[in-house]
């Protein structure tokens, strides 16, 4: 003990008469906390810089004239601290602060959403007076103002602790909300920031129930969660419940590959809110608004509740019993098997369900035609996933924070993996991380990361990764990281170049997909070239391992690489496939939605396992309802490859995909053993680590740059975090916080077209056109950027192309033909 105390980096102090050793620089409040001494506090938050704003944490320190705020005071050798437990001075000081805080607090707890879980309520009871000596009129403000469609601010309740402003500034980097005015008029209000264009009057006064400028941040929900009073509340949960009648369940987010841990609160069979879980290794205590508020899809009107079967006579789907539907599916698939059945699983499955599909395809359907990718893809990508992603867990969030340098290609972290963005930002603002972005322009997100930009015309990334000296230099430092997004798959040679670059520089490579189930699907074997556990299908030894685990004959698992999503769709559209088995896939996400729908029409027999009616169920022969994430247990793998297991939030009778598949398989005389999640987990856990050699990384040569003629440009695009994805359907309040869709063009194109900010620009292909207001951005020359799937900009469906394609540009709305058809629609 004494040895430790003598070390120069620790000090010994006394708190409430107990001697304690603390690290130098530690805050008194934290040391006390460690000892189990609770000092009341409001502004203090372990993940935010100390502010000393509320003064509730006053303690008595020997030798100091006045009580000191323990949340800003660092420990010192020999310090003697007395908290409210042992010092009447500290207790009196805290009582006085509480009285002052309550002087202007409306105490409208009965109407306040925070009532029942409010630190102010609780600490007023433990550390406050039982009555107030203030008889004067309290400060009054207009009752709540909407600072975004989702977040409400009630300034009367605010105790000016500045947790919200510090979060916005330090963590999210969106400084929209701030302290304004002085003295007794001091208040939190909406910050004048016009980056996203507000409709306010500009006088700082809220009008029409709206804030001056919308609080346009993807992380705004966190301010609600950390506000220690009910000053910030959310529209979605407003007046819905009290904590005492909510049942809280820890869960994981089903949206993106960030893998946030969450808490879901439900009442009477309905999830009412979700909060960020506390997982220091992953999301710390934060999450994004999509994960927090995007769960209304589970209760959408179009949830499928009973199996549906296409009636032979009428050609319509009708509700049937489970046994009838299962039998029809089994017979249909058995018949279709000869001509081949393609399996499209989508990126939303849990590992367990993905594994059930992988096993079903191999064992029951005898095919490797299975692919989870429901987006533009390439064969090169499948090879890359086999060589560099399956089973690789090289990079963690902690590494991100501590890395000296990170190069990001084909990924827009703020839009596509928000918590990775927050970690990058933490590394950048608190540590030494230097971010280099390879992108067509420096987005707002990259600006917040202080990123250096290597401007890339879409399609040119492969060449840049191979030759650009700035990129190579950024990766030369030991510990450097190379992030590639799933979008790099559409750049020929992109992933090959990334793998080669990582090998050359020694940088660690991380592949970041967009959806929660993507990473798990790879390891579960939902790829045409991979069996579960990253085993290559073409490797006989790997096939033998898996046959042994599955207790099937060695020859049963097909040994040739199957078709990928594009090939399955093409084959089905050409009428070469006997059938399709489709999980949660939206044809609108695929590279060519029109062809995909044609494929569904042409395929002999389509089985769909879905949550809600979709373009697939409309064309299916048999439809099975399956459980949404809240109604089942399962596991996701986040982009790191970390397991994110979760339990059932709402116990219902809804079945997992695995259970439905097992029942279908049983009628095809195959025992799948995927009926329950624990069985699958045991099976996966018992599977030995593969001895098969990892295939080498692909080496596809970069393509030559596409030429653009006059009034043509190369298309750049990615998804906005909050867009028209089917898991965000039916949530108008959340949709109100989406970024407004714009067409970004460079100065060169703006001049050539004669448009300025806000003018309509039309981007067209042979298939169709998209018109959006222009926003002149510092883009690479001859590049136009559109959001992939936002209101008014459904890229794949309207244009039939993806990023990297050459598109036509014109000023204004499209010609009369299109315009009139738009009106009639």
């Amino acid at each position, binding site marked *: 003990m004494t040895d430790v105390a003598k070390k120069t980096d620790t000090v010994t102090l006394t708190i409430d008469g107990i001697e304690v050793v603390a690290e130098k620089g530690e805050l008194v409040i934290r040391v006390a906390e460690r000892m189990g001494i609770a000092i009341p506090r409001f502004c203090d938050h372990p993940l935010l810089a100390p502010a000393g704003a509320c003064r509730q944490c006053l303690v008595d320190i020997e030798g100091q004239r006045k009580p000191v705020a323990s949340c800003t005071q660092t420990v010192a050798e020999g310090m003697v601290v007395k908290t409210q437990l042992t010092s009447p001075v500290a207790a009196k000081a805290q009582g006085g602060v509480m009285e002052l805080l309550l002087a202007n607090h409306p105490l409208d707890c009965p*109407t306040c959403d925070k009532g029942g879980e409010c630190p102010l309520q609780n600490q007023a009871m433990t550390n406050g007076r039982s009555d107030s000596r203030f008889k004067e009129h309290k400060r009054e403000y207009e009752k709540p103002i909407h600072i975004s469609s989702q977040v409400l601010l009630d300034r009367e309740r605010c105790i000016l602790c500045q947790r919200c402003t510090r979060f916005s500034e330090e963590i999210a980097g969106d400084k929209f909300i701030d302290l304004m005015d002085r003295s007794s008029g001091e208040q939190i209000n909406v910050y004048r920031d016009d980056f996203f264009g507000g409709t306010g009057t500009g006088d700082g006064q809220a009008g029409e129930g709206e804030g001056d400028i919308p609080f346009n941040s993807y992380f705004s929900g966190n301010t609600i969660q950390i506000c220690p009073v009910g000053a910030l509340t959310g529209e979605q949960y407003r007046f*819905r419940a009290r904590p*005492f009648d909510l049942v809280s369940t820890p869960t994981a987010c089903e949206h993106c590959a960030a893998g946030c841990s969450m808490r879901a609160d439900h009442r009477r069979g309905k999830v009412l809110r979700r909060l960020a879980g506390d997982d220091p290794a992953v999301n710390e205590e934060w999450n994004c608004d999509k994960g927090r508020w995007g769960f209304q899809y589970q209760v959408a009107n179009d949830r499928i509740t009973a199996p549906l079967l296409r009636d032979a006579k009428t050609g319509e789907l009708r509700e049937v019993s489970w046994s009838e539907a299962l039998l029809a599916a089994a017979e249909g698939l058995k018949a279709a098997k000869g001509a081949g059945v393609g399996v499209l699983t989508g990126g939303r499955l849990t590992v367990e369900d993905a594994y059930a599909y992988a096993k079903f395809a191999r064992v029951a359907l005898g095919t490797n035609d299975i692919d989870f990718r429901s987006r533009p893809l390439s064969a090169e990508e499948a090879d890359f996933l086999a060589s560099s992603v399956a089973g690789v867990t090289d990079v963690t969030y902690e590494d991100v924070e501590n890395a000296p340098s990170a190069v990001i290609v084909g990924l827009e972290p703020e839009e596509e993996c928000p918590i990775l963005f927050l970690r990058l930002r933490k590394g950048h603002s608190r540590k030494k991380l230097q971010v280099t972005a390879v992108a067509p322009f420096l987005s707002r997100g990259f600006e917040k990361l202080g990123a250096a930009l290597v401007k890339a015309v879409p399609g040119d990334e492969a060449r840049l990764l191979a030759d650009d000296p700035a990129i190579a230099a950024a990766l030369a430092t030991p510990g450097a990281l190379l992030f590639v997004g799933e979008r790099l798959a559409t750049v020929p040679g992109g992933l090959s170049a990334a793998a080669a670059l990582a090998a050359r520089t020694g940088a660690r490579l991380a592949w970041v997909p967009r959806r929660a189930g993507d990473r798990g699907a790879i390891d579960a074997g939902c790829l045409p070239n991979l069996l579960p556990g990253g085993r290559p299908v073409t490797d006989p030894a790997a096939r033998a391992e898996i046959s042994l685990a599955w207790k099937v004959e060695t020859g049963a698992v097909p040994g040739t690489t199957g078709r990928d999503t594009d090939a399955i769709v093409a084959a089905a559209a050409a009428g070469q496939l006997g059938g399709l088995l489709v999980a949660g896939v939206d044809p609108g996400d695929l590279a060519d939605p029109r062809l995909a729908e044609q494929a569904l029409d042409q395929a002999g027999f389509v089985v769909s396992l879905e949550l809600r009616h979709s373009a697939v169920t409309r064309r299916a022969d048999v439809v099975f309802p399956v459980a949404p994430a809240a109604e089942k247990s399962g596991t996701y793998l986040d982009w790191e490859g970390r397991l994110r297991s979760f339990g059932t939030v709402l116990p219902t009778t809804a079945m997992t995909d695995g259970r439905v598949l097992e029942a279908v398989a049983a009628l095809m005389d195959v025992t799948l053993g995927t009926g329950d999640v624990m069985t699958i987990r045991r099976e996966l856990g018992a599977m030995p680590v593969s001895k098969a050699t990892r295939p080498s990384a692909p080496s596809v040569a970069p393509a030559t740059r596409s030429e653009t003629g006059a009034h043509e440009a190369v298309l750049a695009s990615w998804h906005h975090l909050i867009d028209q994805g089917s898991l965000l359907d039916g949530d108008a309040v959340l949709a109100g916080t989406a970024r407004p869709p714009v067409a970004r063009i460079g100065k060169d194109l703006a001049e050539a077209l004669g448009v300025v900010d806000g003018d309509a620009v039309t981007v067209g292909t042979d298939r169709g056109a998209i018109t959006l207001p222009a926003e002149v951005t510092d883009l690479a020359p001859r590049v136009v950027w559109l959001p992939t799937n936002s209101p008014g900009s459904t890229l794949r469906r309207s244009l039939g192309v993806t990023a990297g394609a050459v598109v036509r540009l014109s000023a204004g709305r499209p010609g009369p033909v299109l315009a009139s058809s738009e009106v009639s629609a």
Partner: protein
Amino acid sequence: MGTFTGSFKGFGVTFAHMFRKVITTDYPFTPPTPAPRYHGRHILNRHPDGLEKCIGCELCAWACPADAIYVEGANNTDEERYSPGERYAGIYQINYARCIFCGLCIEACPTRSLTMSNEYELARDSRQDLIFTKKELLAPLLPGMEQPPHPMRLGETDKDYYIGALTNPGTSVGAERAPWSETGTEDAATAADTDARPETAGTLRRPGQSTKEAV
């Protein structure tokens, strides 16, 4: 001898009781009047303009030791207002299969919305009917009251309602001893006319109920 006097003593008790005050009641023809503070069925009171006093805060539900109350708050809008202020009870239920009439909910209510009447005729023939909703619990509209939703008539803001609201008990008049017992049988209605029941000052019929079934 002893036997004779023994029997006589026994009959004596019987005879003596014949001249004592009768303690059985003539229920349901003359229902007894409970003590003024008797804990009976709950009432959700109104403001003098008819707006509901309940703000859907759930404090009553929280206080209830029997878990008998279920409340779901909802948002008042200018177009559709049920109570002054921002919040009202979208759903309000008391389950009389659970309630033990302890009155803790009344103590918890911050708006004096919830009070108890003297009504004790709460037997029903199904569990479902024992769950009283806003329809059964809300106090009847007095003259001058208006059926919500409607705008605030008594002032600009909710504060105008709350200042003085606690000393304004008149708004539940007519509900304390509800005159419309749903269990009142046809016999009861004919046998005992309305005078048979002690009436409170402003006895009201439920709108749309005839005198007969309202007894």
